[in-house]
């Protein structure tokens, strides 16, 4: 009883903190909320002075207009494929390499790992021109491959998972090794299932980065039907469409999947950020 009273009073003394945090949260969420509200107003109502807060007339037609303004369904599928294929490939390829770096001794391991680390240090823009050149030479401009292939490889992911594998106890793998399993089997059957939290963190981060990736798609896929949503919306905003409610409806539809994934998996997500941030 005394315990609960004490806890209660402590909670009571937390109100200034709650006040500050709530004010901050309102300021943070307001733009997104305003986006939702504006997307439900008619164009005329959205430009009204003084503004209406809630739509007087809930206008869902903006969402329908999105589909006639850009090839939304196409771009959605492009985004989904780009994101899923990149993520799946990174999980497989990074974890394979990471396992080798963590558990197999072979000549050249150190220098090769340093080369991976070097990639990690370089700003992304330095890769862009030659990558574009490669896509052009392969005839891959305006294709799904262009969106997916360079994003399948990640030095960051390899590094993250190597750290993860190194933190795993080695005994189970040893037992499998003594049973005559080859390194790939040990990796696939024993180590990979144990590394699930690391894989989940990398998977979620890659999902987010890929879904929102803008510069690379802008460079390689200029045909609207081949763009992902990030680039499609950027060009929609750039076109002469100044119908903000429609732009906001489209933006919200495009960003909704990531928000859903984030809210559903936020523990892993935040763990991934904290983990990669702290150790990266």
């Amino acid at each position: 009883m005394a315990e609960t009273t004490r806890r209660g009073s402590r909670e009571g003394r937390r109100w200034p903190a709650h006040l500050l945090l709530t004010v901050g949260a309102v300021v943070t969420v307001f733009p997104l909320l305003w986006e939702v509200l504006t997307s439900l107003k008619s164009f005329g109502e959205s430009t009204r002075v003084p503004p209406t807060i809630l739509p007087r007339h809930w206008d869902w037609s903006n969402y329908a207009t999105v589909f006639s303004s850009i090839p939304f369904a196409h771009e959605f599928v492009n985004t989904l494929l780009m994101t899923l294929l990149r993520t799946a490939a990174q999980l497989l390829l990074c974890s394979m390499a990471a396992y080798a770096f963590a558990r197999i001794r072979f000549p050249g391991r150190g220098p090769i790992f340093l080369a991976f680390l070097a990639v990690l240090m370089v700003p992304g823009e330095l890769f862009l021109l030659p990558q574009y050149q490669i896509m052009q030479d392969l005839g891959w401009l305006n294709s799904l491959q262009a969106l997916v292939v360079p994003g399948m490889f990640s030095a960051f992911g390899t590094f993250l998972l190597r750290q993860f594998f190194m933190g795993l106890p080695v005994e189970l793998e040893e037992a499998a090794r003594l049973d005559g399993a080859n390194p790939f089997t040990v990796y696939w059957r024993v180590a990979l299932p144990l590394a699930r939290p690391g894989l989940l963190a990398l998977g979620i981060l890659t999902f987010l980065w890929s879904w929102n990736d803008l510069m690379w798609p802008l460079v390689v896929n200029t045909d609207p039907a081949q763009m992902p949503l990030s680039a499609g919306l950027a060009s929609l905003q750039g076109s002469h469409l100044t119908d903000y409610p429609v732009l906001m409806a489209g933006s919200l539809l495009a960003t909704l999947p990531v928000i859903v994934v984030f809210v559903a998996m936020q523990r892993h997500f935040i763990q991934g950020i904290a983990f990669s941030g702290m150790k990266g």
Partner: protein
Amino acid sequence: MSIDTRPTAAVPAPRVPAAAPGDARARRRRERRFLHRDKWWGYALIAPAGLGLAVFYLWPVVETLYYSFNDWGAFGGTTWTGLSNYRTLVTDPEFWHSLGNTAIYTVLVLLGIPLSMLLAVLLNLKGMRGTGVYRTLYFLPVVTMPAAVAVVWRWLYNGDVGIINQALSVVGVHGTYWVSDPATVHFAVAVVGVWMTVGYNMILLLAGLQSIPQDYYEAASLDGAGRVRQFFSVTLPLLSPTVFFTTVLSVIQSLQVFDLVYLILGANTGAGITNPAYTDGETVVMLFFQKAFYDNQRGYGAAIVCALFVLILALTAVQFRLQKRWVHYG
């Protein structure tokens, strides 16, 4: 739902009891880290990721460096021009302008870190409830697609009907066209930059706070240190490595800012740039993008990003040098 910051990965926990250290045993432990000795398996497992990285990342760095010493012909041929692109760079007012803009953006976004720290400290208070909800809300801007961020902020900043100016007019202030006025564009863009990064930095700092052992506070409080004193003599020093790391990361990312500014300034118009404050907001990476992919001056574009890379390396090195003065590694 606390953040798991156990050093599971970076610092492998000793797997063998630390008792009875001896050379033979230490060697055995080291050997044990490598479970397998079969080098061909090693190469095979590394090959797919390694080749991909070599082709799409490592070699391109070399190529970009090479491009920066060349002129790019209309049909793809290159001619060696030595330092010519770099000479253009140092005399190009647009480059210096974009560098200045980027520097201002970077500094302004850094000002968000104390804000993130305040939020993290509040969330880390003992007995705080609802921390999960706050964390989710503050993190939402981080995961929102930049296009969705840009469109709503452009609307909020709109000079005629934007809600910011409408609110200001209530108190008798006549607001400007925030993102197309050279006097306000830096500030307007940086506010969005801070808005988008506060939650991210907060998570990093919160993880740092949670890794401070509770004993330190207990000891300090036994020594009679009050709340404020505890913050300055326990929290701040022990958090300083995380603050340092967050700062370094923030600088690196801000110097490369592209998406957000590009979209807010409306650089993506097919009809050319119509924003009168465009050059007052343009960042280095935007200039690179423009030169390399629109103006077909790839050699010059390559020189711009090479210069940026050197700048990032130099600034990071300086920060590491300066950390001795203020970062405490306990």
